[in-house]
């Protein structure tokens, strides 16, 4: 056997937007924004914490010296693990280039799989969505796919969490209206985990919060960052920035401004308690200057997502990405195109916790059919990322020689051994021949997805929580209801 020197193998495809030098330049630019321009923090406690950490206060305006940002970047854990709430299995390792996929949270509307109508999302629609996510193998975590709106709205976040946790064991990224809602949700999680420390050791929930672009941390957001740190629970902080609207129209300007929002959130979190788990988010996209929508399907949205992933890897921060979503108002060809592009680019770039799979209508509506179709797209993208292994076994020279010209490989042990692992078989994508497809009802991809969604809703049973745990969670929800009555 010869030895091979200077041999380089790509275990996966290589894909990047920004070089390390460009990442450094953008980091320095964001730090300059924080030192020079600063942010507004609409929470007195967070401002006190920032002041003690060495920030400069001018009313609610806070300027952050770069050394304080660097300290936060050093103290934040480089990896976060999320667990299954039923089995305790540590399934989601947010580190390096691991890419996991899940749904999005707070759409006001959803498409009813039985009527096809766009309607306000409800506790039932959220429960159905979570069942479907729980059943789909390529979805790794859950967000509610709708705001629960058929309960008192001021405490709807508790109902939303209850609907999620009853219907799935997968890790949950949840929203809360404020720290009071967040505290109730944490209490529910502690009941399920069996205690405060148990939850901290094996978290199955992370809170989602966001600043308001440009450069503003509202009371709700800042206080959640503080509470999450005090509890030692992970928090996702996601600037939603619009190129040309809330941030510059140039892509580098978008990244700089968005990163400054993220890093200032990180500082609030780390200055409260160093070592708190923090997941950097970012839905960086354009404002479409014709319709003024916040685009979920533009090429710039994908480009910025991949660039931010490069940035997160450079900073060694776990990252919350966005993929599998669309500006299309129904699940049509456009929705398919936009999901395929974003999921493929996300899988290739490797942000860790990728949400919004199943969003249509620029994030205003969710569709379970779209989610189910994207389950296949994620599988296809993951196959792309697995790349091509080149070695003696996969080159198969002996086999090629054995079969020889004019032979076939169909009945070979080597084929039997590899055809399933080398090839990905999607579930809903059609590869039937014409006659078989016609015989089968000549169904479109959407129709097949709709049938699968209904089948899951009617026949799939997620692993239930123990009855006494369910009752205790119910009691937390009811206690919140009593307060608003």
């Amino acid at each position, binding site marked *: 056997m010869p030895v091979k020197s200077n041999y380089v193998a790509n275990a996966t495809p290589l894909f990047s937007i920004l070089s390390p030098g460009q990442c450094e330049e953008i980091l320095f630019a964001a730090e300059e924004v924080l030192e020079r321009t600063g942010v507004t923090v*609409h929470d007195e406690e967070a401002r006190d914490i920032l002041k003690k950490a060495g920030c400069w206060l001018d009313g609610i305006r806070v300027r952050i010296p770069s050394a304080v940002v660097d300290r936060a970047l050093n103290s934040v854990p480089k990896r976060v693990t999320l667990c299954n709430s039923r089995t305790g299995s540590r399934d989601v390792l947010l580190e390096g280039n691991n890419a996991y996929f899940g749904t999005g949270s*707070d759409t*006001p509307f959803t498409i009813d799989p039985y009527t096809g109508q766009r309607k*306000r999302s409800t506790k039932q629609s959220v429960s159905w969505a979570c069942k479907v996510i729980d059943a789909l193998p390529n979805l790794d975590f859950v967000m509610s796919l709708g*705001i629960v*709106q058929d309960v008192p*709205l*001021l405490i*709807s976040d508790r109902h939303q969490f209850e609907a999620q946790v009853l219907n799935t064991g997968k890790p949950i990224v949840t929203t809360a*209206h404020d720290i009071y809602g967040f505290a109730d949700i944490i209490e529910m999680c502690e009941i399920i985990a069996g205690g405060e420390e148990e939850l901290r050791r094996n978290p199955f929930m992370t809170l989602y919060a966001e600043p*308001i*672009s440009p450069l*503003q941390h*509202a009371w709700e957001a800042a206080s959640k960052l503080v509470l999450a740190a005090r509890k030692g629970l992970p928090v996702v902080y996601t600037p939603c920035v*619009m190129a*040309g*609207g*809330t941030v510059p129209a140039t892509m580098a300007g978008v990244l700089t401004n968005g990163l400054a929002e993220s890093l200032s959130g990180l500082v609030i979190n780390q200055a409260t308690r160093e070592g708190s788990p923090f997941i950097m988010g970012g839905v960086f996209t354009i*404002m479409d*200057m*014709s*319709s*003024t929508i916040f685009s979920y399907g533009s090429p710039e949205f994908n480009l910025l997502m991949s660039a931010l992933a490069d940035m997160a890897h450079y900073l060694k921060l776990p990252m919350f990405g966005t993929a599998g979503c669309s500006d299309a108002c129904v699940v049509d060809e456009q929705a398919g195109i936009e999901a395929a592009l974003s999921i493929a680019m996300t899988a290739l770039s490797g942000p860790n916790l990728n949400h919004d799979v199943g969003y249509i209508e620029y994030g*205003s509506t969710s569709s379970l059919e779209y989610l189910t179709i994207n389950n296949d797209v994620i599988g296809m993208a993951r196959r792309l990322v697995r790349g091509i292994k080149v070695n003696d076994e996969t080159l198969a020279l002996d086999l090629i020689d054995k079969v020889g010209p004019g032979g076939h490989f169909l009945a070979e042990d080597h084929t039997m051994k590899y055809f399933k692992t080398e090839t990905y078989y999607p579930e809903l994508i059609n590869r039937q021949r014409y006659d078989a497809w016609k015989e089968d009802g000549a169904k479109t991809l959407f129709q097949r997805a709709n049938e699968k969604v209904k089948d899951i809703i009617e026949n799939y049973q997620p692993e239930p929580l123990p009855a006494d745990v369910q009752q205790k969670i119910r009691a937390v929800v009811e206690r919140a209801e009593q307060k608003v009555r």
Partner: protein
Amino acid sequence: MSNYFEDLAKSVIAGQQERVKELTRQALDAGTDPVEIINQGLIAGMNVVGARFKVGQMFVPEVLMSARAMNGGMDLVKPLLVGQELPSAGKVVLGTVKGDLHDIGKNLVGMMLESAGFTVVNLGVDAGPDKFLQAIKEHKPGVIGMSALLTTTMLSMKDTIEVLKEEGLRNKVKVIVGGAPISQDFAEEIGADGFAPDAASATDLCKKLLA
């Protein structure tokens, strides 16, 4: 004379503020009626801009540049309108509702309204019923517009409408609402006069309500 108007309108459409100022000065020096300059030059140009934006031929930043160019001319003409009423499409009070700091959409509505000739009073963010009430008493607008991004804060819209009823002002002003979680159904449910999904339709809605 008509050449001034045509050039003025064209320069407004092209968003050339310096050129608009120059032409406005020339027209005034030539003794042109200020009201004519506004109506046949500046506003005429802006009307074309509005129509082009609607069909996707112009983009938001271009519309705002045109509005800025128009205002460059307006600033020169306004002081000369002694005793004459400045043409305004109407007055609108805008605000993001109580508890909510999201205002990019609301600000966009304000800018589009202004570019369509409305006078806009922008209350900023976190505007509760009292703030709207006070603004109505002070500015006597034809329309108030409330914006919210959150399902929790959108409830404040109803509170404001209730306060207007209690104060006997509900029939004196039209109420419009907008924002990501808002729908036509919600607008009707809380007793608003209209809902607009975006800035361009908010402008149309105000025109319709004040017609």
